[in-house]
């Protein structure tokens, strides 16, 4: 589904050329849950942008679902982002003037026309467990709920892959675990997920770990014993339940 072949990305500022990605190759198949890990400056955000069709590689090839992304035009890239990719951002990026439903329906504005947008958005909100909150505005939702609305927005177009950039970075550990539990459930339902993080504990919820360092892959292995977010949630709950009383 995702095929990267010797991917190179340089940024040129004046006469200074910075190499950010120095030949990255890997494949992601349908149904995988991959965590891409690296410290800041490792090139993981650039890789995420290229995977999401927001940026173009300087060299090498990137095929998504058979399409050569380096050759796609601006409008074609827009269409691919709309149909095949679901973005989840660290900062949620919800429109604070619009309620949960309107936010979830935002990608459908740019999708090819059929009716049933409302039904699809309701289904997506139900899938993230927020059916009851569809008319709440972002300000009325907790951070975890906001991120789940953002995930529903990513799911509403039924994309090939879900691309998450530090999805738990702005959340406390409990809300972070809830989001990870949701990802694990989506993975069990057969979705393909690629998650970028700097946090080892977060990465261990995925099934495969790719570690980037200075623009190169230094590690690409299955996670031996993936953590289970639901179990962790129960443990935290028990701990807090056994607290001062």
């Amino acid at each position, binding site marked *: 589904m995702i095929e990267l072949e010797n991917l190179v990305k340089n940024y040129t500022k004046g006469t200074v050329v910075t190499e950010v990605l120095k030949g990255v190759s890997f494949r992601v198949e349908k149904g995988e849950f991959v965590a891409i890990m690296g410290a800041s400056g490792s090139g993981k955000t650039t890789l995420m*942008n290229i995977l*999401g069709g*927001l*940026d173009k590689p300087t060299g090498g090839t990137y095929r998504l679902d058979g399409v050569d992304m380096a050759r796609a035009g*601006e*409008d074609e890239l*827009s*269409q691919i*982002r*709309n*149909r095949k990719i679901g*973005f989840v*951002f660290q900062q949620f*990026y919800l*429109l604070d*003037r*619009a309620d949960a439903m*309107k936010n979830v*329906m*935002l*990608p*459908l*504005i*740019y*999708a090819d*026309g059929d009716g049933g*947008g409302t039904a699809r958005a309701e289904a997506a909100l139900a899938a993230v467990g927020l059916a009851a909150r569809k008319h709440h505005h972002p300000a009325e939702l907790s951070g975890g709920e906001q991120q789940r609305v953002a995930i529903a*927005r990513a799911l509403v*177009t039924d994309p090939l892959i879900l691309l998450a950039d530090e999805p738990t970075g702005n959340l406390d550990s409990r809300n972070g675990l809830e989001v990870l539990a949701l990802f694990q459930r989506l993975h069990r339902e057969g979705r393909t997920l690629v998650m970028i993080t700097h946090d080892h504990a977060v990465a261990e919820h995925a099934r495969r770990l790719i570690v980037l360092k200075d623009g190169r892959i230094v590690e690409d292995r299955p996670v031996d014993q993936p953590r289970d977010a639901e179990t962790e949630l129960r443990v935290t709950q028990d701990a807090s339940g056994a607290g001062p009383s």
Partner: protein
Amino acid sequence: MHFARNAVLSCQILAARKLRTLLSMIGVVVGVGAVILMVSVGRGAEKSILDRIGKLGTDLIIVNAAPARLMIGRQRTVATVTTLSIADGRAITEDCPHVIAAAPAVSKSLVVRWESNNTTTAVSGMAAEGFRIRNIPIASGRPFDGDEDRARRRVAVVGPTVVKNIFGASDPVGEQIRIGRVPFEVIGVTRARGIDANGADQDDMVLVPLETAMRRLLNVPYIQTIYIQARGSQWLDQVEREVRNLLRARQRLTEGRPDTFTIQNQMTLLKTERDTARSMTLLIGSVAGIALLVGGVGILAVMLISVRERTREIGLRRALGARPHDIRVQFLVEAALLAGFGGILGVMAGIGATYAAAVLGFWEMLISWPAATIAFSFSITMGIIFGIYPALRASRLEPIQALKSE
């Protein structure tokens, strides 16, 4: 792109920022409102002039027995001459093919008395046809006729101002008045006609038969004025030429000598006034149009701020699949919506102000629907034109940079 769905979202975003949206529309509201108010005022002035043309009779030409000069933009007779006679009036009726009738007249300011009251007013001796030619309506009583003129009867038709000045509330018809020292019987009162184009009170006058005036009041053999009715308003210029040629021939004026008389074509006079009113309307309308343009610049400013503020939203939309074209359309639609709402409010404000001014009694006003339509369409067009640059800027943002912005 789902155009309507996005437009609804745009409305909600604009509605959520009520104060900002209102402020950005104010320029357009004021501009559109001003255009409508100004043009309505101008149209009202135009209509009052057209009404005056109608009251005057559109087929009227006046010959004055005096050469004229332009004074302060208007034609004024400068000295009375004694060269016109009743025979000239008859000749005009008989020899000018496009003339229906002509009524010679003389006029002098005289003291009019009733019982112990007196007033000084313009006393006109006029041929009986004058009532019809000059379109003088009778409110009560009757006008005098040709027989009374030939018989030099001492009968008078008085204007409402004279009635007010010397009769007060009494009914003047049948009463005896003295004009100078000569007793007259009042047989009719004219209907009020108000102020004429030169600002003179048309109701402050007494009309008596021409022959009576010439022989019994003024003792003059000449006349001062001839009122001429043309066959139709389209013949006014033709009649003017015919009358001029005839009078010059009758007075043996050789080529190159100036006229000893003045021909006043009232239509020409009032047309000039109407044109003045029109250019005035155009002028104040244009000034208001500039106000509208300034409103457009306001929209430009607000849209530029909006693009800057919503950079992250633009980045998000691009990430979610919006093409540059979609972003462009969105911001154009928002600019058009702003201007359009402003335009609607402006139309309401303009019509409201026009009604208010009419109720407060400034002058007659005509709501100009063409002006309203044009001003409204112009506001939307302007919104789109001033929205182009912000929309282009929005669509050219790089999605990654836009998303990262604060």
